């Protein structure tokens, strides 16, 4: 394990690492979402699930400091997020590798931004080490165009982990990949996050993916004026393995609950919150 990530406490402390406090996003007269409150604890893996257009990407961008909420604040480690930071790495949906650099150079660019004083050869070494961690020793010298979709996304993952951030933000990182590759990468990410004891926040459309990876799953209603309708606590024991996940007891119940939400309740709940709904503390559901 790299030194940087050793002294992380694994226990959930009282104060969450990230606190989202009543943020809203408006474009002119339309409100994409409002009154969104949630927290992400240290070392926790949270997934955000919801239909297209409900504002998931916007929320993630706000957490990453790439965007700012129209209302409300987001605290990270107790301080307001004012802009992008090396502490919060983002894995983008479209891998976002710069195509004129090799895999190694892409990672080294990230490392060089963090460690400005490192000489070139040290950056290259560290980059190769990061690539080795995702099984890409052999592809270090190849350009993104010479890599398959899965390999590209792996480089993106290596780049994000190389700078040992405190939190990983992932926006549908695997949605462009085929089922087989997707499975492999899910396991990769799960392993790396666990190893480094990192906090993780991921957007996904894939219910199986959310169940495989998350500790908690935030379910959002449809937009406009989307909300966090409920928080599903994933009690399936860890470590989870994709090949046997659907044989695990509780899996089908959990999946059916989320499917039901996506198919019907995300729509019906959109207009009218149920009685007793408190946006500051969306109902936690344990199945």
């Amino acid at each position, binding site marked *: 394990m790299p030194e940087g990530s050793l002294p992380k406490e694994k226990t959930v402390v009282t104060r969450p690492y990230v606190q989202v406090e009543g943020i809203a996003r408006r474009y002119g007269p339309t409100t994409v979402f409002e009154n969104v409150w949630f927290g992400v604890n240290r070392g926790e893996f949270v997934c955000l699930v919801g239909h297209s257009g409900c504002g998931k990407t916007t929320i993630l961008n706000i957490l*990453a*400091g*790439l965007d700012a909420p129209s209302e409300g604040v987001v605290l990270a480690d107790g301080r307001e997020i004012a*802009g*992008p*930071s*090396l502490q*919060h*790495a*983002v894995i*983008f949906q*479209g891998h*976002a590798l*710069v*195509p*004129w*650099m090799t895999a190694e150079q892409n990672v080294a*660019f*990230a490392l060089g*931004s*963090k460690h400005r004083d490192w000489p070139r050869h040290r950056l290259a070494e560290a980059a190769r080490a990061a690539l080795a961690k995702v099984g890409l020793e052999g592809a270090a010298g190849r*350009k*993104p*165009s010479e890599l398959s979709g899965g390999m590209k996304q792996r480089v993106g993952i290596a780049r994000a982990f190389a*700078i040992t951030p405190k939190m990983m933000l992932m926006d549908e990182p695997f949605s462009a990949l085929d089922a087989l590759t997707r499975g492999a990468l899910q396991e990769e990410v799960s392993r790396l996050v666990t190893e480094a004891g990192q906090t993780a926040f991921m957007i996904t459309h894939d219910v199986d993916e959310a169940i495989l990876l998350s500790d908690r799953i935030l379910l959002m209603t449809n937009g406009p004026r989307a909300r966090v309708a409920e928080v599903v606590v994933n009690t399936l024991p860890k470590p989870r393995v994709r090949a046997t996940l659907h044989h695990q007891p509780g899996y089908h119940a959990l999946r059916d609950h989320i499917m039901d939400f996506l198919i019907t309740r995300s729509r019906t709940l959109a207009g009218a919150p149920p009685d007793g709904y408190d946006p500051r503390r969306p109902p936690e559901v344990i199945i």
Partner: protein
Amino acid sequence: MQREVSAWRAALLSLVILALFLGGWELALQGAGQGGGPALDPEYAALLGQAAATGGQTPMPKPSEIGRRLFQLLSDPFYIRGPNDQGIGIQIAWSLGRVLLGFGIAALVAIPLGFVIGMSPLLNAALNPFIQVLRPVSPLAWMPLALFTIQDSSISAVFVIFICSIWPMLLNTAFGVSAVRREWLNVARTLEAGTWRTAFRVILPAAAPTILTGMRISIGIAWLVIVAAEMLVGGTGIGYWVWNQWNNLSIADICIAILMIGLVGLALDRLLGLAARAVAWNE
């Protein structure tokens, strides 16, 4: 539709087309020149020498004649016999020198300026009207102004090339810089890469293919302009050579000049094409 074409078949077809064209030209002129123009006073005709004895239309030179002349010119392209009589190779070298100088200065100005303009939507919008108005102005309209204001003809020629070739580079650089994928800028931002690091390691390489496209258009225009510039400034260069051959109405030489200008233009374009390929990235 089949997209793969063997290079051999294409080259063969090219040659066949060329052969047909030149053959047709040669044949069409076979026996021309013996054509019965207006009947000449025989006494008069006798004075004009044998070529003129038949009179009539001025014949186009045959491809074979052009070929012979081309061979003659190319067999000693670099001779210098006094200031007015230099080989075609030297003339092309002069033109190339002027073009490269004007184009080089244009690139040195256009690329940093385009970068700045591309980064600022406000500047972009504010400067655009000027660029758009100046862009379509012909070299032959700039030339008098340049000669008048600069008061140095060789600088004027370079200036005209500069002013005509700057616009595509400027516009393309500005466009390329302003169109850098938001994604990559976001990567740089989340990595807290500084302004310079972002500019040189992300924006410049990302915009490089667009910039190179602009440079390619620009060098094409620069080469298009050189003939005009040299005709007016005179002295040396392929443009002046064309002008001289025109004054002497040597059609064969003008055809050769057209071919040479085309080939050199093609070479310049290919060169920048290679450069473009070197900075190209594909995903």
